[in-house]
């Protein structure tokens, strides 16, 4: 008798509002400001949390249902890939080095994002924002797990993946992604959403997951393309959260605009610098190529990001400060980064190589204004040296930018032959930067960035040796002691691809198949 009969099922909008709007309450034992102490101190003013709208309007029930379906699809592929020795079907063993960078530098960020969104969701007093953060936190944990599962299969056959979590906290170039995310999670909740949801997910994440995953498909890596697209299907929701959050802050209060603009300036640049690694993966590490970094940048950053900033102009938001320099960099950063890793490959647990003639021809076609002029001569010199038996490995440590932690490899705006150096003095110390924008970020919050854990400085201070190591002992080799601290297998994880164990194994496995086939022909 008391059972209510609904004459009509609730529509999407009603279902969403019933779920999110009924969950919160005004606290009475403690004032709201004490229960939610973090959502005001950044200076962002919110007058009406009910204006927060999640345009996808997913309810928890629908969320679990669709996520469950995605997982079943994904694991069917991962299982099939493992059962059928999918690793033998990739275009070339060089390709696997892109996966090494992925598991070393990208996958741990998923876990940071999981923690960051759990923490940030707790900070908001509006239920709509809390629910969105909760779903994203669960998504990010899923990404961390599925990427680890999928790539663990490769770890059985290839070097350079066996200590990826250990490396993330120690190895020099992995401090680039690590410090990026630590910067974000140690900011306030609104800045965190601007950094990760908006600047990274909305403006930049397509560059990582779309052309690179399409590249994985093109190189025969079924399991990576499947986890990549499965993760990216969640990203669409995350991107939407990013743009909603920005619009929400801007619509609530005009005084929020300059705060948000400063965050956009900062986090666009931080994200752009981080993606240098992806640029290099795309142009140099995929044996079969789908599109160049430059083309991807034009499609996803310039054209799509351009549309976005035109759209936000009505709130008084302009394109990020570093936009023009970032667009100029599209001709150079992948080549400059590859050059750096080629030189420091003794200290990096993945392989590098000089591209083949066909690959260089592709690079010159894709980079008509820069490759032949600035970057090809260096690669040809490296090749000549290698063929003469002089493969060079730098044994010193690079100088890093205090903000982005990338070695000083970027060039002056307008002059791709001159390395860009900037510096700031703060409380008696000198700090170095790769660009005006990284310097600007430091100058605004020096108290934060003087705490940067810069690997070369830490190594020189003796913090990167195993306990009990005695640097005063005769014959002490500091670099080998650092590799031991990294738990890197010297000679297997590092150095040139040419002559590597990965190369020999892959050739032997492939050769086994063709040798058997040939014998079959004779019989």
């Amino acid at each position, binding site marked *: 008798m008391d059972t209510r009969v609904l004459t009509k099922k609730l529509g*999407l909008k009603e279902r969403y509002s019933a779920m999110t709007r009924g969950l919160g309450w005004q606290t009475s034992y403690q004032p709201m400001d004490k229960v939610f102490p973090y959502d005001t101190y950044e200076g962002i003013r919110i007058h009406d949390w009910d204006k927060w709208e999640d345009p996808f309007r997913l309810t928890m029930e629908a969320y679990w249902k669709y996520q469950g379906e995605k997982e079943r699809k994904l694991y069917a592929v991962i299982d099939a890939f493992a059962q059928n020795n999918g690793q033998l079907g990739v275009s070339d063993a060089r390709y696997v080095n892109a996966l090494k960078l992925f598991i070393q530098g990208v996958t741990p960020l998923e876990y940071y994002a999981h923690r960051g969104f759990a923490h940030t969701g707790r900070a908001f007093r509006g239920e709509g924002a809390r629910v969105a953060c909760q779903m994203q936190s669960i998504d990010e944990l899923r990404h961390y797990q599925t990427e680890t599962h999928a790539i663990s299969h490769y770890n059985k056959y290839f070097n350079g993946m066996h200590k990826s979590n250990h490396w993330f906290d120690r190895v020099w170039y992995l401090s680039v992604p690590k410090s990026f995310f630590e910067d974000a999670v140690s900011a306030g909740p609104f800045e965190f959403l601007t950094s990760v949801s908006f600047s990274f997910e909305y403006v930049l994440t397509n560059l990582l997951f779309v052309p690179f995953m399409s590249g994985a498909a093109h190189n025969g890596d079924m399991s990576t393309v499947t986890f990549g697209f499965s993760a990216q299907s969640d990203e669409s929701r995350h991107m939407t959260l990013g743009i909603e959050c920005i619009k929400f802050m801007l619509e609530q209060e005009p005084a929020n605009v300059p705060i948000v603009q400063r965050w956009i300036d900062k986090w666009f640049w931080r994200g752009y610098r981080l993606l240098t690694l992806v640029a290099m993966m795309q142009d140099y590490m995929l044996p079969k190529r789908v599109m160049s970094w430059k083309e991807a940048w034009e499609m996803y950053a310039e054209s799509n990001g351009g549309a976005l900033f035109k759209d936000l102009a009505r709130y008084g938001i302009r394109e990020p400060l570093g936009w023009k320099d970032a667009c100029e960099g599209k001709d150079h950063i992948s080549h400059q980064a590859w050059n750096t890793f080629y030189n420091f490959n003794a200290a990096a647990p993945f392989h590098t190589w000089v591209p083949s003639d066909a690959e260089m021809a592709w690079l010159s076609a894709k980079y008509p204004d820069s490759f032949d002029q600035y970057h090809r001569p260096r690669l040809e010199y490296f090749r000549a040296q290698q063929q003469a038996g002089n493969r060079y490995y730098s044994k010193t440590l690079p100088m890093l930018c205090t903000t982005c932690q990338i070695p000083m490899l970027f060039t002056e705006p307008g002059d791709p032959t001159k390395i860009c150096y900037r510096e700031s003095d703060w409380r008696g110390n000198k700090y170095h930067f790769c660009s005006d924008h990284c310097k600007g970020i430091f100058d605004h919050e020096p108290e934060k960035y003087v705490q940067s854990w810069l690997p070369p400085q830490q190594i020189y201070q003796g913090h990167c040796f195993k306990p009990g190591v005695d640097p005063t002992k005769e014959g002490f080799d500091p670099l080998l002691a650092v590799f031991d601290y990294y738990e890197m297998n010297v000679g297997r994880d590092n150095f040139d691809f040419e002559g590597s164990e990965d190369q020999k194994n892959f050739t032997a496995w492939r050769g086994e198949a063709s040798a058997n086939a040939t014998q079959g022909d004779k019989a």
Partner: protein
Amino acid sequence: MSNVFIAFQSNEESYPIVEAILADNPRASAVHSPGLVKIDAPDSLTIKRETIEAQTGRPFDLQRLHINLVTLSGHIDEDDDQFTLSWKH
């Protein structure tokens, strides 16, 4: 004027959705790359439940888009019958 876009994994579930989008949005165009189909359209793009259902001959819940969705751009407006992406400038 700017383009909005939406991309899906290239698979059997996505084809009727892509067909429906191209039928309902005459100015939209699809670009195929490995594993992926991306549809671009000037200003706005609408996905209609009814058109997808007419393609497949069975009921379709628009939120199933999430399963094969890869990426999108533009502001979203979604209800039970349609899903629209648009720019407001």
